[in-house]
């Protein structure tokens, strides 16, 4: 009886491990979660306004865009790539979506549906090109997406003639600041995306092979899988998420400008790295990315409440990025986790 229980217990442990929820991976994420918790406790004690419902929903709103971009970035970094173009693509998707959104004589529903289609479609096309160009010619994605960074920014400026688009349907604008139980709806959208990404990465053949490619491309190829498909798919997913982020951006700020999103790619990369994903690929989780995005958001908000200037905040965020990677290195060496 006891023996039976034992084998069952070890069976479920193994099942968990395979799903990406291995005790080790869980412990990694728990470590990052603990860091987040400590930050929250620290700011709650040391500042007056941190732990207020208003401020919390403020933080959640602020991290939403970065979180959505970081989820896409996680796919790309897991296969050992990088996407520097997401900031520019955000602007391009936004102005394309914004243009559709302001077409006269459309019902609100039609306008929003078409605009979403246009923004996500733009992101998909840009992301596909990023992935296809780098996979087909065997180029480093760093260089290809650096090119796309310029192309998308230029395209955004060209399409709008450098003008800002506004006067969206009022109900669309209102949606951006809606809350459910004090939680911003846009953040809930981001959470749903995190959940979908988690499912895809840890439960599907597709996700398994992305991890495989990040760890050992040649072994995956010789096992009969097309590297091209998976690489292009990872960048395309990142592009699609930029499109969604662009819609969320417009709903929140009620404008679409060709100069938005400058430097957003670096914030997204920072969230992914702080979340424990390896820049070499093959290791990391989207839950880590969620925690990483929360850490950067909490830090930004808390430090300002703490009375530090925005300049100091920027410096400290930089230090945290470097610290996160150093800690990760030691953790790996000392505990093998």
């Amino acid at each position, binding site marked *: 009886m006891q023996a039976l229980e034992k084998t069952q217990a070890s069976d479920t442990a*193994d099942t968990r491990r*395979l799903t990406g929820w291995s005790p080790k991976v869980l412990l990694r994420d728990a470590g990052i979660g603990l860091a987040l918790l400590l930050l929250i406790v620290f700011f709650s004690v040391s500042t007056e306004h941190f732990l207020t419902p208003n401020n919390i929903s403020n933080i959640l709103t602020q991290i939403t865009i970065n979180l959505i971009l970081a989820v896409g970035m996680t796919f790309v970094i897991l296969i050992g790539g990088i996407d520097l173009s997401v900031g520019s693509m955000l602007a391009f998707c936004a102005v394309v979506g914004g243009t559709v959104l302001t077409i006269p004589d459309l019902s609100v529903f039609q306008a929003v549906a078409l605009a979403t289609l246009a923004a996500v479609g733009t992101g998909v096309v840009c992301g596909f090109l990023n992935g296809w160009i780098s996979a087909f010619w065997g180029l480093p994605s760093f260089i290809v997406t650096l090119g796309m960074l310029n192309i998308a920014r230029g395209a955004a400026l060209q399409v709008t003639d450098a003008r800002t688009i506004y006067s969206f349907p009022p109900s669309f604008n209102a949606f951006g600041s809606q809350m459910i139980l004090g939680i911003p709806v846009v953040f809930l959208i981001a959470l749903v995306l995190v959940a979908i990404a988690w499912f895809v990465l840890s439960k599907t*053949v597709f996700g398994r*092979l992305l991890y495989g490619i990040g760890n*050992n491309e040649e072994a995956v190829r*010789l096992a009969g899988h*097309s590297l091209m498909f998976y690489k292009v798919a990872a960048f395309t997913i990142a592009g699609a998420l930029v499109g969604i982020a662009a819609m969320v951006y417009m709903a929140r700020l009620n404008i679409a400008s060709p100069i938005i999103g400058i430097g957003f790619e670096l914030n997204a990369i920072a969230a992914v790295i702080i979340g424990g994903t390896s820049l070499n690929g093959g290791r990391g989780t989207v839950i880590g990315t969620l925690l990483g995005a929360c850490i950067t958001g909490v830090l930004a908000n808390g430090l300002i409440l703490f009375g530090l200037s925005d300049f100091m905040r920027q410096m400290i965020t930089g230090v945290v990025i470097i610290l996160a990677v150093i800690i990760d290195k030691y953790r790996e060496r000392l505990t093998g986790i």
Partner: protein
Amino acid sequence: MMNTESVRADAADISTRPVLELHDVRKAFGGTKALNGVSLSIEPGEVHGLIGENGAGKSTLIKVLCGIVRPDEGAINLSGRAYAPTTPREAKANGLQVVHQEFNLLPYLSVAENIFIEHLPRNALGVVRLQEMHAGARAALDAIGLSDIDVCWPVERLGIAHRQLVEVARALMTESRILILDEPTATLTSRETERLFKIINELRSRGVSIIFVSHHLDEVFRICDRVTVLRNGETVFSRPIAETNQDELVRAMVGRKLQQQMASEMVSLARPEEALSLVNFRHPQSPHAQGISLQLHKGEILGIAGLVGSGRTELLRAIAAAEPPLSGALRLEGAPVSFRSPREAINAGIGFVTEDRKEEGLILNMPIAANVTLASLSDVSRAGILDRKAEIAVTERLGAELKLKYGGPGRNAATLSGGNQQKVVLAKWLARNPKVLLLDEPTRGVDVGAKAEIYALIRQFAERGLALLVVSSELPELMTLSDRILVMSQHRVVGELSRPEFSEERILQYAYQGEQQQARH
């Protein structure tokens, strides 16, 4: 009185004393004894051949001498003094230079910079003195007869043979007493080999001792003064080249081995049905239009022997379409097929256990179960969603069948020993039920006990009707496993042996004959 005597003794010794002496040097990596009592003595100004089969300990010995690996036991004397280098730099400072088999050149720097990289001439401000460097490099190249190379060219512009010679020039920059050449002719054409031999002769007359590691016995006879044979990490014998012959060297390299007896008792399991056949099949680097033709039957284990560089690995990679073939026909169970990608080959029923387990076979940092199911994910998933229970079931079933020793299917493949890692690779292909399994060096980096297990498994696969093509550099292994052995040389099949004809001597003779024929062309 005592003093003067010892001084006199020293002086008398200098001319006759060996420049380098090794006595009973041993080195183990884990349980594997890489060096198991190597003794060697090198005279000043001699060219000393060092030969042995793969795994005999040549590479480890070189690593010990140039300070990369520290021996566990034994004494090394350099010019009468104890010598125990801890870094390659220290070895160089002691006048010991190595030209490695793999190139250590920096491709985008100039030839001159490469030659001087260890001690760039510079002025007080640390600025490199270009003229001095170029003049020095010119002199170094002229000294070995490379006057046709401009020292300002980047190394990437040079062919492989010239790069090798630039390496030699670099090694000679520092006054060296001993120069070790590790397989220096592997990439050279016969004319370039001649040039290298001329350089070696010149160095010898200057009193430099040269250790010449080679697979090519004819070269050893041409250039060496003495020869030492290693086998299983031990010195078998060491004698002047004039007192030995090719047959004796081959016999010394091979030794008498138990497996040979085992082999003769085995019965072939080959069935009459053809599993795989190749006609004029050419891999991408094949220099011969006629390519390779062979037939493999169901249940047959066909061994492929040959020296390093004879095109064995390339042949397997082309069959598996890891690098799609250049031309020729491939038939699988009688039906003509052609594969453009590993995916197509795998879907048709070909499995390929690669030579390099860590780089190409396994994903070390992923669970054992994920590695086992890597080539058969559609069997353990529904609508693209993985079924973990099915994955674990497959892993446990195959793990039991292959006697895999593992902590659990969720453990990373990196936690396994070499032999068990190889079993995971085998399990990956068995999960697909292939018709043909290609095995490249199936027991590389596997300890003796696990080797026997893997041999038994391969026999079992054959019993089930699986057709197996096995490439191995270990001849005893091939003779144990195979029903038939093809010998390859210079990308062609130069000999075929049936089981009663198996002998290491015969295989090596074919392999070397092929080489010599090539040299004469």
